[in-house]
C-alpha cells in the first residue's frame, strides 16, 4: 500500500513540469511527496502540475503537503495545478473545504473499480 508510492517527473520544457504520483498519500508517505515537490518551485518554473490519477487515497498530511506547494507557488510566482483527481481524493478536498482554494483540473477520472 504505502510503500508503493512512486513519483515520476516529466519536464515539459524549461518552465513547465509535471509530477506524476502513484499510490496512497498518507502520514507515512507524504514526507516523500514533499521532498519531490519542493525542488520544483524555482524562480524559473512557471507551471507545476501534480498528476494524481494514480492516487486512490489521500489523508490530511497529503493535503497539508499540497497546501505547502500552494504556498511555495505563491512565493515563487508559479502556477500550481492539481489534475486527475479521483472521486475519493476530490471528496477529501471538498470535506476540508479546500476544493475551491486549489487550481484543480475539472476532469474527474472514473474510479478504477467502475
Amino acid at each position, binding site marked *: *500500500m504505502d510503500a508503493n508510492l512512486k513519483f515520476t517527473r516529466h519536464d515539459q520544457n524549461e518552465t513547465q513540469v509535471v509530477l506524476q504520483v502513484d499510490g496512497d498519500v*498518507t*502520514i*507515512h508517505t507524504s514526507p516523500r511527496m514533499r521532498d519531490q515537490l519542493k525542488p520544483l518551485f524555482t524562480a524559473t518554473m512557471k507551471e507545476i502540475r501534480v498528476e494524481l490519477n494514480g492516487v486512490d*487515497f489521500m*489523508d*490530511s*498530511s497529503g*493535503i*497539508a503537503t499540497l*497546501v*505547502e506547494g*500552494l*504556498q511555495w507557488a505563491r512565493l515563487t510566482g508559479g502556477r500550481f495545478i492539481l489534475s486527475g483527481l479521483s*472521486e*475519493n481524493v476530490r*471528496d*477529501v478536498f471538498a*470535506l*476540508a*473545504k*479546500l476544493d475551491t*482554494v486549489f487550481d484543480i483540473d475539472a476532469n474527474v477520472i472514473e*474510479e478504477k*473499480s467502475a
Partner: protein
Amino acid sequence: MTASKCIQDVSFSECESSHVGKLHLQINCNSDCIYVLRSMVAVMTTRACMEARQSNRVSIAVDELFANISKHAYGGKAGRVELETFIEVDAHGEQELVFDFRDYASLGWKGSMEEAAERSIDVENLCPGGLGLKLICSAADHCEHEVLSDGNHWRLKFCINKSL
C-alpha cells in the same frame, strides 16, 4: 515492531448468527496499526453496503482519529487504544456504523469537536493537526468526545443509507 506486539487482542463477538456483528480490537499505537484499522473499516463498510465514496470517508475519519491519538495523546509513543465497531439502529430506525475509540493517555483532549467541524482552514497558516480534526468532523455524521479520568473516549457515527 512485530504484529504480535502491535495487536494484543482481537475478538469477533455476536457474529455467529448475523453478518452484522461487532468487532473489538485492542492495539498499541504505532504506525503499522493503520493497516489493521483499514481492514476493519473495509469489513464494516462492506457489511454496511456502503458505496466507495462513503467507505473512503469512513477510512479517512478513522485513520485521522487514530493518527491524532497516536501523535497528540501519546506523543508518538506506544499507547493502549481500544476500538470497537458495530452497526446499530438509531431512535429513528436508521442504521448507523459506529466506531468507538478509547485511549488511556494521561492528558485528556480539551478541544471541541463542534468547533473543529466549524473551523475554516487558514491556507496561509495551515495547522496540519487542525486539518485532520476538520476532516474527521466533516467525514463523520456525528462525533463525540469525552474526557475520562484515565484517558479519552471518542465516538464516530456514519449514517449507512445516506446519499452523498
